[in-house]
């Protein structure tokens, strides 16, 4: 191999590979595309202005409305990094709101700051207990996380109903309301809380060895235990932290509307949070996680929700629209799908060579029957796998 070739080899994977190899590239592109789409439909979309003590604008709304999902997703990121999953966060959101509002409503002075503080502290304490329960089932009893947290997911809303007596509890407490609808330094409080927690967790896990431990336990729990890690404690901690994040998100949601709705508060938020984590590039198989990715993922989800309203997608198909966008992001992220697309484009050139013909035979069949767009890509992938598996 000549020096030139070697140099080419070194340059080859350089820029392109580094850019396309980054886990963040595709979700960021998706976010940018959504923002561009919105700006095209609504030219004033990107404008942000100061009115009085607060910022106004669509972007601020997106951030504020996305704050609960982001917060839940931060907790979820660590859980998923340990190869787990927490399905109970939606129920915990409902319970946190129910406990806080019930406590405030039954306080001697329901509008006093102290009533709000007591209510919120009680709610968060309950959330810690719920997290301990999840962590106990997963790390001590050894139940698979998806089942263990399914218990609380199912039972949680019932518990919230018990607490609220199946009523929607409304409160009128300025201190509590500030957590969901207040502004500090021009910014909505929920944004400050969620971003603050994200930054704090990022610093805590990356500046200390906590991140290494979480990843290590997620990748190989037994090897981690034999290396002297407290695998069980780490597992337990991430579930408690996840419940705590969900609890704070529940307070935001309840405070924003001054009410606890056991049925609808945080409904499906666990799925949005999991989606945000996965779009952000953290694998459900555990191990390496990316909090920056989770931030981008949460923003993609929320921008998408906003887009559905702003570009006027009919409500009856809005969920389908969301699903299509999410699938496109995942396909763009998958190296296999990208590889297939690239190969497909190059095929006319390669088909002439003896090498190209035989090897791609199975793909060809699926491709020609599958039509255009993203569909054939999806059909090709399993085909390709089967061939390899049989060999």
């Amino acid at each position, binding site marked *: 191999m000549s020096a030139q070739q070697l140099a080419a080899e070194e340059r080859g994977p350089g820029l392109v590979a580094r850019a396309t190899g980054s886990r963040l590239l595709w979700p960021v592109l998706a976010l940018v595309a959504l923002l561009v789409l919105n700006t095209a439909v609504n030219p004033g979309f990107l404008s942000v202005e100061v009115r009085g003590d607060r910022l106004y604008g669509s972007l601020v709304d997106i951030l504020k409305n996305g704050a609960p999902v982001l917060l839940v997703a931060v907790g979820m990121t660590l859980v998923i990094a340990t190869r787990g999953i927490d399905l109970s966060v939606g129920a915990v959101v409902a319970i946190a709101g129910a406990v806080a509002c019930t406590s405030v409503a039954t306080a001697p002075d329901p509008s006093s700051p102290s009533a709000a503080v007591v209510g919120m502290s009680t709610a968060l304490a309950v959330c810690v207990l719920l997290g301990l329960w999840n962590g106990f089932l997963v790390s001590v009893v050894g139940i698979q996380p998806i089942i263990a947290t399914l218990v609380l997911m199912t039972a949680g809303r019932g518990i919230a109903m018990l607490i609220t007596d199946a009523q929607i509890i409304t409160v009128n407490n300025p201190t509590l309301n500030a957590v969901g609808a207040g502004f500090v330094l021009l910014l909505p409080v929920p944004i400050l809380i969620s971003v603050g927690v994200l930054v704090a967790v990022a610093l805590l896990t990356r500046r200390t060895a906590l991140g290494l431990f979480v990843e290590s336990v997620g990748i190989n729990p037994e*090897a981690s235990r034999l*290396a002297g890690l407290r695998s069980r404690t780490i597992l337990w901690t991430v579930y408690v932290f996840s419940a705590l994040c969900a609890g704070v998100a529940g307070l935001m949601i309840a405070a924003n509307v001054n009410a606890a709705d056991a049925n609808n508060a945080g409904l499906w938020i666990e799925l949005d949070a999991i989606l945000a984590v996965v779009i952000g590039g953290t694998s459900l198989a555990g191990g390496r996680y990316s909090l920056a990715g989770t931030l981008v993922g949460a923003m993609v989800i929320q921008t998408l929700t906003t887009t559905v309203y702003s570009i006027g997608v009919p409500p009856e198909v809005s969920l389908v629209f969301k699903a299509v966008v999410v699938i496109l992001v995942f396909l763009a992220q998958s190296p296999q799908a990208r590889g297939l697309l690239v190969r497909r484009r190059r095929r006319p050139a390669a088909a002439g060579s003896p090498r190209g013909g035989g090897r791609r035979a199975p793909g060809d069949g699926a491709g020609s029957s599958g039509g255009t767009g993203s569909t054939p890509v999806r059909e090709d992938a399993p085909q390709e796998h089967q061939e390899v598996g049989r060999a």
Partner: protein
Amino acid sequence: MTTPERAAPQRPPTPAAPDRGPDQRAPVLAAQGLSIEFPGVKALQEVDFRLLPGEVHALMGENGAGKSTLIKCLTGVYRPTAGAVLLDGRPVSFSRPAAAQEAGVSTVYQEVNLCPNLTVAENILLGREPRRLGMVDGRAMRARAAEVLEGMGVRADPGSALGSHPIAVQQLVAIARAIVVDARVLILDEPTSSLDADEVEELFRVVRAQRDAGTAILFVSHFLEQVFAVSDRMTVLRNGQLVGEHRTSGTTRLQLVGEMLGRELSASDAAPAARGDDASDREPVLRARGLGRRGGVEPFDLDVHPGEVVGLAGLLGSGRTELVRLLFGADRPDSGTLEVGGRRLRARGPRAAVAAGVAFSSEDRRAEGVVGDLSVRDNMVLALQASRGWARPLPQRAKDELVEEWIRRLDLRPASPDTLVRNLSGGNQQKVLLARWLITRPRVLILDEPTRGIDIGAKTQIADLVLELAAGGTAVVLISAELEEVLRLAHRVVVMKDRRKIAELPGDCSFDDVMGLIARSDDDHAHHELAPAGAERRTA
């Protein structure tokens, strides 16, 4: 001078090779001047290779010698840059592995590549299910599978789930799957790496039967004794080049190892290493009294002194691994006491052991050793960081220095701290695992099968390291399936049998001493695992 008969006295002698007059027949599968390049690497250079019908042919070489690459060229996974693959003398170019299989070249890979949730019959006939009116004919499928299994002499219910069988049976099912298509060439890549001695024997029985039926078998293994026990001829590769093609019966182990390594054997290979002075008069650093666990190992006493290598000898399943797991606290003992450095270890479990200066490298590197998706750096500092706790991270510079130092000392390849450990070869993964523990400066280092499944070069390095550590005052407890390795390195040998410690012997005891103890008064099958390794070394 070495013969398979000598190596395995309990076995009926292998039918001798001469009546198959190997060299005259036309090869069924051959390679001529095969070369393949990957960016920056010449993986194979003008390799000639001949596989004859009705022979077991061993493909030998260190990790990275090009064995897998050659197999992949033969089976159509890779396309050679130059040269030709000949099937029955005609050039062929398999477009993909399935095409090779259709032409009668079947491969069984190292990791069992089957579906544990499906039945044995489904696994054997997956993708080739007999059909009736367009539906899979379950009865015909089971019948066909039963026929194949019976032909191989394997007793397994075709209707049972594959996962319910031991690995050995799964391995045989994988072979059944390979030969159900009337394979004329059967390629076995490290088929024995997870089998015990009896299971290996079972596998070899099937291999020999296939050979006698005329199948050409290509066999890749790290176990020299197995190669000598089962193969008729062998091809040796080094650095992508052909260095030798021999009849097994005319080849000595020393000659073979020399060709594979391409250098003179180091001192620890050729002769017993110089041992340090007798350590037993010093205070023991590890003292177990009546330590035991029901269903694991019966209560035992054991002292390990600083600077001493204590080897554990015994058959697979004799309780070697169970014993050291109790020493480390990987399993909880239910009787007895353990002292480290004169202090009783009360808390049980890996953390307490690590804190007391005990380190344990598990035999199952992948599942219990390295953390595959983390970098070399993170893997190496994991144990030290775990003992410091999460709140006191190692400073970046200290971390880098430690990692650099151990990468250099252990000759890790590639020498990059950022490589993910799962991308390293087995030998290098083992080195990372060793580094993880050595960084903690342990007083007692427990190594369970540190040389399993790694190439001879890395084996030698690890053996040298063990001696060096002991010379520096570390106590080492060593388990190896190769008794010869234990005898070569250990100052003292603990003999295990049936989950019991049955004796302690001085390090200069002989192979026969240990064998005698284990074989005394009972069963004959016990010889398998130990016999080949030892007999081979003596005669070589």
